[in-house]
């Protein structure tokens, strides 16, 4: 098993969320859910992160920001979209400045629905993301071997 699944560090970005999902994401770090049990650390820096948690919908203002964060995460990495807005734009999807869900901009690996998403659901999403991470890691390895 790759070590990356034992130590997934996250970066959390609030696109244009109502803060409901963000509070639930932070709840995961509290003593009640304590995700550090799985080696999860909230880094706040894309260059250190493996898992990108996005809440809220994509709009014109935060488009380049989301792109930049994704670009500056070293591979292998996964994107987890959390909450209805991040999935599809939610109730704001018709809004003049909203482009829709996060997958309009960057590839999303795991979708966690809910409004707001429950901490249990978020943790479940991250755990599923670990499977994706491991697969990506193996692909990377194969690619590197093929390259040589």
């Amino acid at each position, binding site marked *: 098993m790759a070590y990356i699944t034992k130590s997934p560090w996250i970066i959390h970005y609030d696109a244009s969320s109502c803060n409901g999902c963000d509070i639930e994401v932070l709840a995961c770090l509290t003593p009640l859910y304590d995700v550090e049990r799985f080696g999860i650390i909230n880094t706040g820096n*894309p260059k250190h992160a493996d898992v990108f948690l996005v809440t809220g919908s994509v709009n014109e203002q935060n488009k380049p920001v989301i792109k*930049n964060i994704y670009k500056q995460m070293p591979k292998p990495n996964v994107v987890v979209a959390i909450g209805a807005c991040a999935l599809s734009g939610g109730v704001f999807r018709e809004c003049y400045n909203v482009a829709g869900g996060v997958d309009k901009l960057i590839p999303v690996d795991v979708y966690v629905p809910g409004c707001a998403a429950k901490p249990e659901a978020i943790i479940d999403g991250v755990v599923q993301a670990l499977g994706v991470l491991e697969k990506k890691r193996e692909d990377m390895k194969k690619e*590197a071997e093929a390259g040589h």
Partner: protein
Amino acid sequence: MESLIFLILFPLIAGGIMLFLPNGRGRDLFVNFAAIVTCLGSLYLLFEYFGKGEVLFAVDGTFVDPLILAAEVAIGLFIIGISLKFKKYLVTVLAALQLAMAAYTEIVFEPAHNIGFDLFIDPFSLIMALIIGIIGSLICVYATGYMKTYHEHHKDVKDRRPLFFFLMFLFLSAMFGIVFSNNIMWLFLFWEITTLCSFLLIGYARDEVSWKNAFWALLLNVIGGVAFSGAILFINAFSAGTDIYLNELLKSSPEIALVAAAFIGFAGLTKSAQFPFSSWLVGAMVAPTPVSALLHSSTMVKAGVYVIVRFAPIYESSLIGIAFAFIGALTFLTASAIAISQSNAKKVLAYSTIANLGLVVACAGIGTEEAVWAAILLIIFHAVAKSLLFLSVGSVEHQKHSRDIEDMGGLIAAMPKIALMMLIGMAGMFLAPFGMLISKWASIHAFVNAIPPFGMLLIAIIAYGSGITVFFWTKWMGKIIEVRTERKPVEKEASRPEMSAILTLGGLTVLACLIFPLISSTMIEPYLHAIYHTTSPLLSLSNEIIMLFMIVVVILLPLSLFHFAKGRTLRRQYMGARVTEVEGEHLKFLGSMGVMKEEELSNYYFPNMFGEKELSRAGVWSSILIIVVMFALLSWVFPLGVMM
């Protein structure tokens, strides 16, 4: 003996010829030729006197002594004349006093001549001669390229290059004189010549600021001169005539030697820019860079510490020596702290010079065998690394039209060769396997055994000072290697003579670190064993091996770059995930108001905590206090009644 006299006279004559050569290739070639001859001369000296210990020479004085007297009077009259012309009456008074003392000595005591050896050479002199010969001539070579560019940049300054090169070579000749003189009166003449040369070179631009700083330097150096002539007067008045010879004086009765050492050491403090006299060296940075490199980092200030180190055995375990040690240690701490708040590169170098000389003085004041060993090593390493830094900064200044450290961002990309040399020089000033740190290590070893409880206080001062040193050097290094965007190196970093001098000095810095055990065992230790009559090795073999091992690691580490260049992806700096773009050398990001802003980074300077004014004042007053206490102690050691 011939080679000694050759080294004193050749630069003088060559300089005299330069006075009449017009600007152009011919003169540059002649300067290079003279520099190479001087350099080879000092190397020949090494070949001739290596391993010979102390060798004394008698010179037929009937012809030379009147000449020396005449030169001394001429210098005195010149200083009096020029200070009157510029209405610097304090200088006039002091110079007159000095002249009067010299005349009084000559008339009343009629010092007997030709009773001892006027010239000498020993391993310490030999080391100094090598420093002067090699580094001094490299700086002269550098100056041929630098001064040409200097006058292209400074159209307002009248071109006086013939005089400039004359003074530079006269200066080298005087320095050789200082380190070869056994007769203190001769030593004093050469001492005065360096004062005069430095005055004229600082005032080279002849504008208001240069004159002001030149006269300030002159004033402080003349104070030292008065103390020096006082010492000569004292020796003539109170002891046998032979005490005027250095080798005899060191063996003389403790009282006589101590008083002479205190006065001449005081003169040494002025010349080596220790507190309270440090301000002249900072002001002297207005001079063209080769002057700063030659006079104010690698040679002239070394004359001051040279005499202090010479008298180190006398200072050993005396309170006078402790006083000198404290002045040195305080200077080290204060000057290092002030360097933090400076962004002018030459001022940082000036303060760091003052600080390092302070460490030398502190070691010499302690005066034990180990301390003197550290002091001599410090002199060697400091001379090489500091002149390298000065010359590099001079060339950078001509490229960037600024000597501000803040303008040196990304120098490693723009001027890779010079930037690398600067990094070597700075690493040499404070990092582990390099020279200065070996000496710092040795000085700590020496201080722990000094007279309690003074040794501990000195250690505390050095401990704080060394933390401060790390701060201001590292932030400068950081500035140089800070690269934000891809950029192309400039086509020509510096003129050929400049580049060759810088690269040679860079090589010498590394070489000195590699062969210092050899220098130590073949030159410094024999010198120390002759004085202290011990035979213990100062640096254990295992420590030598560790240091050499670390140097090898440092040299090999860059090879790792080949590995790290493979299979990496390049990404721009994290700017809070904002939109960024690169425009030439500039990195821009989208600010909150929707405007592209340029990224600007600058270092910390803490002017409130390490302000130049406040710290200088504290340093000056506390060192004056120590000097007063020292002379009070002296009158106790040597009752005033006898002196009167």
